[in-house]
């Protein structure tokens, strides 16, 4: 496995760690946000923070698509599934996410026909096989996933599959980053940009972060060494007084993104005026809905939805975790009332959620030590 060693080499990690440490200005504390849940996972699994100097802190962002779905949207989907002729289809990750009145699993146990699928194309096939039923796909995800939904809608329209619709909950990453930058709660020194989202949108959309907010961003890969290298690139920019968008993950992310994916999204979807994010509240132009032209495949137009806003449970601090304001273990219910087996908040449900990653890898010692030291 020569290839793998290139990304795991302990010597290279040591060299990068030393170079990062050498770039630290004495007395300065550096805070970088990793926007993507996949990065959070690598950071805890491989103990990336253990290689960083004490002065460099990584905080977790809102980049877990399951985590940011508000409870009211889960309830809307369950209301759709309650129609006797409906088959609701969903990625497995959504099944345990609690709504105001239970999860998809609970609704399924109570008799609703809710099926897990791997791809929106699986949902389309189910619609083709069941012409007497209405098949709805619970679409979630950032720009990584939205093009797949878009291609599926185009295919449904082309084939005239009238009993297929999409309950569109796709969100876009840029407005979430902007909301965090505008929030007074948190001062960040830079961002590790999401790897897979960037394969679709490219690097250009991040340029305002450097230009308007004066923060550097480096699109990062998912290997431990990718993340160390990306932190090094951020530190170097700060040390040299530069503020740019750089692409550490160029072996996968083209600067211009994927034009075919963007075109499919543009043809089928448009920005909503606003959308509620769990924990972050309403964010303008932060989510996608189907265009009028595809109304026949838009579950929000095909069905009457309750559309009721449901407040998160009081004990749950997912919002602060998603904004990077607190660490998962600082939440009052972390690991006690809220565990992966009985999650209260979404960050504990999804394997990409920061709380689940913390819980599963038990990597909160360092932060506790840090906190004790600071006190």
């Amino acid at each position, binding site marked *: 496995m020569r*290839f793998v060693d290139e990304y795991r080499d302990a010597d290279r990690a040591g060299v990068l760690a030393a170079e990062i440490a050498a770039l630290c200005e004495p007395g300065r504390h550096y805070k970088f946000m990793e926007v993507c849940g996949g990065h959070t996972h690598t950071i805890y699994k491989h103990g990336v923070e253990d290689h960083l100097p004490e002065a460099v802190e990584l905080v977790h962002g809102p980049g877990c698509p399951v985590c940011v779905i508000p409870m009211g949207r889960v309830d809307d989907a369950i209301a759709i599934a309650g129609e006797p002729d409906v088959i609701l289809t969903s990625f497995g*990750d959504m099944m345990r996410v609690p709504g105001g009145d239970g999860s998809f699993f609970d609704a399924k146990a109570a008799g609703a026909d809710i099926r897990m699928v791997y791809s929106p194309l699986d949902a389309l096939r189910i619609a083709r096989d069941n012409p007497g039923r209405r098949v709805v796909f619970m679409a979630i995800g950032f720009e990584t996933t939205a093009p797949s939904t878009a291609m599926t809608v185009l295919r449904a329209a082309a084939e005239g599959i009238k009993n297929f619709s999409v309950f569109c909950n796709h969100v876009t990453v840029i407005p979430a980053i902007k909301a965090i930058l505008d929030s007074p709660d948190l001062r960040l020194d830079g961002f590790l940009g999401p790897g897979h989202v960037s394969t679709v949108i490219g690097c250009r959309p991040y340029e305002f972060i450097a230009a308007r907010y004066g923060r550097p961003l480096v699109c990062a890969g998912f290997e431990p060494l990718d993340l160390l290298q990306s932190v090094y690139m951020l530190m170097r920019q700060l040390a040299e007084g530069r503020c740019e968008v750089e692409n550490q993950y160029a072996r996968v992310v083209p600067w211009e993104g994927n034009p075919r994916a963007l075109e499919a999204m543009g043809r089928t979807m448009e920005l909503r005026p606003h959308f509620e994010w769990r924990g972050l509240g309403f964010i303008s132009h932060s989510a996608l809905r189907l265009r009028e032209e595809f109304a026949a495949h838009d579950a929000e137009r095909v069905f009457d939805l309750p559309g009721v806003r449901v407040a998160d449970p009081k004990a749950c601090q997912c919002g602060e975790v998603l904004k990077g304001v607190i660490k998962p273990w600082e939440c009052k219910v972390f690991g006690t009332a809220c565990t992966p087996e009985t999650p209260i908040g979404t960050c504990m449900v999804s394997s990409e959620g920061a709380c689940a990653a913390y819980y599963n890898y038990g990597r909160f010692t360092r932060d506790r030590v840090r906190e004790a030291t600071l006190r």
Partner: protein
Amino acid sequence: MCLGIPGEIVELLPDRGDLATVEVAGVRRPISLGLLGPGAVRPGDWVLVHVGFAMSKIDEAEAAATLALLEGLGSAYEDELEALSESDIT
């Protein structure tokens, strides 16, 4: 669901529109090449597969490194593979 999994293109299915058979960790499933465009890949090439679509072409070294990383994830990766093996998009 957010994972991108490396798969090797085994066969293009020209009579099935933009579909191709890929092999992922010993599992062969059809996926869509619709996001890559005509002529972008051929058998033997590696792609990053996400929810039934090839997202981007990658080289073999990247594929090997990503697979090793995913195998280290444990249940999240196993769940994804299981979902993929049950996928039927044709």
